């Protein structure tokens, strides 16, 4: 559905995107994960035809965006990072305006607006001015404005910035519903929990480059990050430490703190039993699960929200 090859873009001396290559299949929710300034929005701008690349190609639904940008524009919908709506229009007037730009016949457009308002749960507020909406409600109308023309691909550029947890969940549900309807979604964010929940495949982007891409388990494998259990004992003797090491060879001890690489689901009860039999008093126990945050940290040496 989307084929990006060797894509590069510079702004003066700043190389915003460097040799980006990836492909996205029909019906996928593809996550572009990276910290602020990583190049995610620049990549979205190029894929959505409003920014020309310095190098490389982008194909949308088989069309080269350089030679067939008009066709590509009808295939894509974009949910921009900003709330790009007219504050002095009602939600309905906004949707009507954005829909008219795609030349959707009037009757059909009105029907679509009604069903989309239903989908995002704002039918009862359709005649209220946007400026009276909460941040989360505006975000939902922002999404609705991008899907009126039923695009095959939806680019969502950090669609949950500045919204409360409840609205965020609502947005997740909308994304999932759209995906169920067959829409391919490209989702950029720096919130790893959003990618973990929504995306089938992920590209980790940092400093304009793709650091790794694949499913979460593929990324885990690639990054070689393992789940660990971290136990802090009140005291631990050399002998007790030796016995633990014999049972769990991956153990690393630092004073009273031991870290064990293991599958917590299977091995945690055995670890605790051994501690009991050795009369080791546990002061604290921490489970370090593998997630995108740890993978990202391992791959880039940076925190996602740096």
């Amino acid at each position, binding site marked *: 559905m989307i084929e990006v090859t060797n894509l590069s873009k510079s702004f003066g001396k700043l190389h915003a995107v460097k040799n980006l290559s990836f492909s996205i299949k029909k019906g996928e929710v593809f996550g572009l994960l990276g910290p602020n300034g990583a190049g995610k929005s620049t990549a979205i701008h190029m894929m*959505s035809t409003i920014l020309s690349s310095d190098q490389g190609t982008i194909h949308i639904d088989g069309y080269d965006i350089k030679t067939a940008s008009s066709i590509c524009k*009808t295939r894509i919908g974009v949910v921009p990072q900003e709330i790009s709506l007219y504050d002095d229009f009602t939600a309905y007037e906004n949707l009507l305006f*954005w829909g008219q730009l795609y030349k959707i016949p009037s009757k059909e457009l009105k029907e679509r607006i009604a069903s989309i308002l239903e989908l995002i749960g704002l039918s009862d507020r359709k005649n209220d001015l946007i400026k009276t909406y909460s941040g989360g409600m505006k975000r939902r109308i922002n999404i609705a404005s991008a899907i009126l023309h039923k695009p095959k691909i939806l680019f969502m550029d950090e669609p949950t910035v500045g919204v409360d947890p409840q609205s965020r969940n609502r947005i997740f549900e909308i994304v999932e519903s759209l995906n169920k309807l067959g829409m391919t979604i490209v989702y950029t964010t720096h919130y790893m929990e959003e990618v973990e929940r929504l995306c089938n495949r992920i590209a980790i982007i940092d400093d304009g480059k793709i650091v790794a891409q694949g499913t979460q388990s593929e990324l885990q494998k690639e990054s070689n990050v393992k789940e660990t259990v971290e136990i802090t004992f009140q005291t631990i003797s050399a002998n007790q430490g030796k016995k633990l090491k014999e049972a769990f060879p991956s153990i690393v001890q630092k004073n009273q703190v031991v870290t064990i690489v293991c599958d917590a689901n299977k091995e945690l009860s055995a670890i605790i039993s051994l501690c009991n039999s050795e009369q080791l008093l546990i002061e604290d126990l921490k489970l370090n699960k593998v997630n995108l945050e740890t993978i990202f940290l391992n791959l880039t040496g940076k925190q996602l929200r740096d």
Partner: protein
Amino acid sequence: MILTIFKKDLKLFFADKKGALVTFALPILLISLFAFAFGGVGGNRTAKPVQLLVVDSDLTKDSKELLLNLEALKGVKTVTKEKATAIELIIKGKYVGVLIVEKGFQDSVALGKKLPLELKYDAAREMEIGMLQSVLMQNLMTTVGKKMIQANIAASFDTKFPAAPKNIKEKAMRIMSADQAGAYSIMGKNTMEMKMTSVIKEDSKKENLGLIQAVAGTAIMMLLFSIAGIGGGLLDEKEAGTLKRLLYAPVNPTDILFGKMLAALVLSILQLTIMFVFSWIAFGLPIFKDLTALILMIITTAFAVSSFGIFLVSIAKSRQQLQGYSTIIIMLMSAIGGSMIPLFVMPEIMQKIAVISVNYWGIQGFYDIFWRSLSLSQILPKMGILVAIGLAMTLISIRLFKKNVLKMI
């Protein structure tokens, strides 16, 4: 504490270069302009001669002498034209007036009768006319005054003493000529007067002149400000992100500009129409005098002004920048173009510079309709220039819009 806050505020003020420019440079520019307009500043500080058209239908020694003496004066420069051409040029506002020396001028001088002289003038140029009238009367007195006085004395003596011998008559005439006051009293009342006729039609009342200036001048200046504001919406859209969203849609970028221009044009037409209707209701401006010409003038002025407003938007990269540019450019253009000061009180050089402003063509067009009462065909060239300004501004705006506004995303 006060000093710290004071220093901070000064620093912030000078950090905004455009704001500082508006505060200091704009008043200096306006002072310079007004000084040129009112104070005769610049050049050699001598007033430019008034250009006066002359028509000599008498072609006699006296008429030629009158015009030669006129030409020799420092304050007047004469240009000879055919009568019809001369009147047309005055109606168009190109010259202040025409002095017509009719047939029989020399004979009237010889007989001491009322002179067939007429000054046809553009009443819109009141100050120049006043000055000209005084210069012309002085010249008339110098050139033919003595001859006319003697002719009158001779005629008066002949009437009173028909049988007096020639030597007595000559002696009496010498004595009477020496008595200036007495000599003048012998001349008939109004003999040395010159007929003064305004070329403007009778239905144009003189008091409308100020009203036309006030309405046209103010309307165009205010329109420029409001259009810059409307066009500035484009920059607001850029900041709000809706411009970017428009570009995601299958819309040609220039269509966005044209859509904005069309809105600006319609609002300009509406604003000008309301201003003229208000002037009709409140001040009696005769807007139905030539409604077709007025409608066309409103449309062409609105087109030029709205295009100019969009041009201002295209050169700015933010709303703040637009505010700085538009204040400077609109104020200067309005001062030069006659929105703030009527052009006819400005020096000739300023009147020549005025043609570079949109205000000038608009104001002159409205003068043509309301004051000069020109026909539509005579006003069309000014409308054409307004359309040309509008088209040129549109083309430049398209280029700059792509370069400045779209590239920012």
